[in-house]
C-alpha cells in the first residue's frame, strides 16, 4: 500500500535527474515540507485533511520552482558534481530550517479517516492506507497523462530526448527545467502529505524518504517514469513481505538487499528498456 508513495517519490526524482541531469539530494526535504505544510494547514489553518493535500502539493511545487530559479538556473551547464554539492547544501539548509521552524519534537497529524479496518473476505486494510494508495495512484496517473498527452508534457519529453533540438522548436529550456523541478517537488510533497497521518513528523523524516526515492530510481532505471512507478510498488511489496515473514525490524533492510541484488544482476534497472520516455 505504501509502495505507491514510494512511486510518487521515485517519479519526481527520476524526472529531475533524467531531464535536468540534477541529482536531487534535497528530494526528501520536499517530502518533509509537504508533511509539515499539511500539518500547518490542518492544525494552524484548521482546514480539513482533504483540502490540506492540494495545499501541500502547491507549497512543495512553489518551493521547488523557487529552488530552481534561484539556485539551479545560474548553474545550468555547470558540472553534475557542482550541482550535486549545491543540492546537498539545500538538503542541509532545508532540514535545519525545518528544525528551526518546528522544533525537534515529533508532530502528529490526527487520522482523518476511521481506524476500523475495511474487510473484504480474507483481506483487511486500514481505510487510511487504502486512501493513500488510491490517491497516490491517481496522482501517478495524472502525472503520466500530463507527460503523455499535453503540450507541456510533449515539450518536457522533447527536452529530455534532445535539449538543443527542443530549443530549436521554440521550447524555452529554462522554463521547462523550472516546471520539471516544481513537478518533482510537488510529487514529493504529495507523498509527504499522504504519509503525514501514517507516520510521525520530525525534521529529519525526509532522509529515509530520499533513500527510498533513490532506491526506487535505481530499481526502475535512471530517468524511467514507468520504471519508477513500478519500482515503488515492488519496493513497497518487498518491504511488506520482508517485515511480515522475517521481522518488522528488517523492513528497511529488505529494500536495500533487493537493490543490491538488482544492481548486481541488472545494473540498468529492473525495468530498463531501450526506451526512456522521461
Amino acid at each position: 500500500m505504501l509502495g505507491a508513495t514510494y512511486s510518487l517519490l521515485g517519479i519526481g526524482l527520476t524526472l529531475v535527474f533524467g531531464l535536468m541531469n540534477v541529482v536531487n539530494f534535497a528530494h526528501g526535504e520536499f517530502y518533509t515540507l509537504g508533511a509539515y505544510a499539511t500539518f500547518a494547514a490542518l492544525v494552524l489553518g484548521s482546514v480539513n485533511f482533504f483540502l490540506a493535500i492540494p495545499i501541500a502539493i502547491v507549497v512543495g511545487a512553489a518551493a521547488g520552482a523557487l529552488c530552481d530559479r534561484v539556485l539551479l538556473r545560474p548553474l545550468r551547464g555547470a558540472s553534475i558534481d557542482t550541482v550535486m554539492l549545491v543540492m546537498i547544501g539545500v538538503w542541509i539548509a532545508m532540514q535545519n530550517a525545518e528544525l528551526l521552524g518546528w522544533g525537534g519534537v515529533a508532530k502528529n497529524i490526527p487520522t482523518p479517516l476511521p481506524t476500523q479496518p475495511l474487510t473484504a473476505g480474507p483481506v483487511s486494510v486500514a481505510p487510511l492506507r487504502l486512501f493513500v494508495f488510491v490517491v497516490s495512484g491517481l496522482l501517478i496517473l495524472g502525472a503520466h497523462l500530463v507527460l503523455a498527452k499535453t503540450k507541456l508534457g510533449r515539450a518536457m519529453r522533447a527536452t529530455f530526448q534532445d535539449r538543443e533540438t527542443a530549443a530549436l522548436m521554440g521550447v524555452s529550456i529554462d522554463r521547462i527545467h523550472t516546471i520539471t523541478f516544481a513537478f518533482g517537488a510537488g510529487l514529493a510533497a504529495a507523498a509527504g502529505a499522504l504519509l503525514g497521518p501514517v507516520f510521525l513528523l520530525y525534521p529529519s523524516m525526509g532522509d529515509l524518504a530520499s533513500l527510498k526515492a533513490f532506491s526506487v530510481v535505481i530499481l526502475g532505471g535512471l530517468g524511467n517514469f514507468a520504471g519508477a512507478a513500478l519500482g515503488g510498488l515492488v519496493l513497497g511489496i518487498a518491504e511488506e513481505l520482508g517485515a511480515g515473514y522475517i521481522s518488522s525490524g528488517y523492513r528497511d533492510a529488505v529494500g536495500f538487499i533487493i537493490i543490491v541484488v538488482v544492481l548486481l544482476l541488472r545494473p540498468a534497472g529492473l525495468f530498463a528498456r531501450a526506451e526512456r520516455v522521461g
Partner: protein
Amino acid sequence: MLALERVTARYGAVTALRDVSLTVGVGEFVCLIGANGAGKSTTLKAISGLVPAAAGRIRFDGYDIHGLAPQEILKRGIAHCPEGRRVFPYMTVDENLAMGAYVRRDVAGVAADLERVFTHFPILAERRRQPAGTLSGGEQQMLAIGRALMARPRLILFDEPSLGLAPTVVETVFAIIAGIQREGTTVLMVEQNAYVALQLASRAYVMETGRIVLEGPARALADDEHVKRAYLGG
C-alpha cells in the same frame, strides 16, 4: 532578408567563426559549402540563436535578431533543420510534427499545414503513430524537413540534409528542398556535397576555417579553379 555582418562566434577558447558576412535575399536559394569543421553548422546556429555571436550583427527583415532566444527567432520566421536530422526518437511522427508547430497558436493553420506535410510526404502519413527512431534515415530526414515546415517559416536553414543517406534518397531530398524553395520559402543550405549544392543554388559562399573565402553566383563558383580542386574533386 537575412544579413550577417562580421559575425564572430566562440566555443570557449575555440573561435569557430571570424568576421562572417553573408546575405540571403527574399526567395533566394543560397548554399554554404566547405570542409568538415569549417564553421558551417556554427553559422546556422548563430542565426537561429543556439550559439550566441560574440561580435557582429545579424539582421532579419531589417531587425537586429542577434541575442534573441531561439524561440523568438523562430517566431520571426526562421526555422532550422539541424545536421543529423535530430528527430525526437521516442516520440511518434505525429508528435514530432506537433513539436515543429510548438510556438504557433493558430490551430486551423497548423492543421492545414499538417495536411500539406502529409501530401508532400505520404510515407509520413503511413507512419503517424510510429516512433521516429524506428524510421529509416531517409524517412527521418523527411520528418525533420516536415517538422521545420510546420513552423510555417519564411526562411529555412538546412544543415547537410544529404548526410548519411543512400544516393537515391539524396536525390529525393534535394528535389524536395528545391520544391520548397519554388513554392516561395527562402532557403539557406549547408552542404558537403558541393557538386549538387552548386547546381541547386543561385548563389553560394565557400567557408574555410571559420571565414568566408569565396562568394558569388553558384555557376561561377562551380567553374572556379580553387573550388574545383578543393570541393569538386577535379
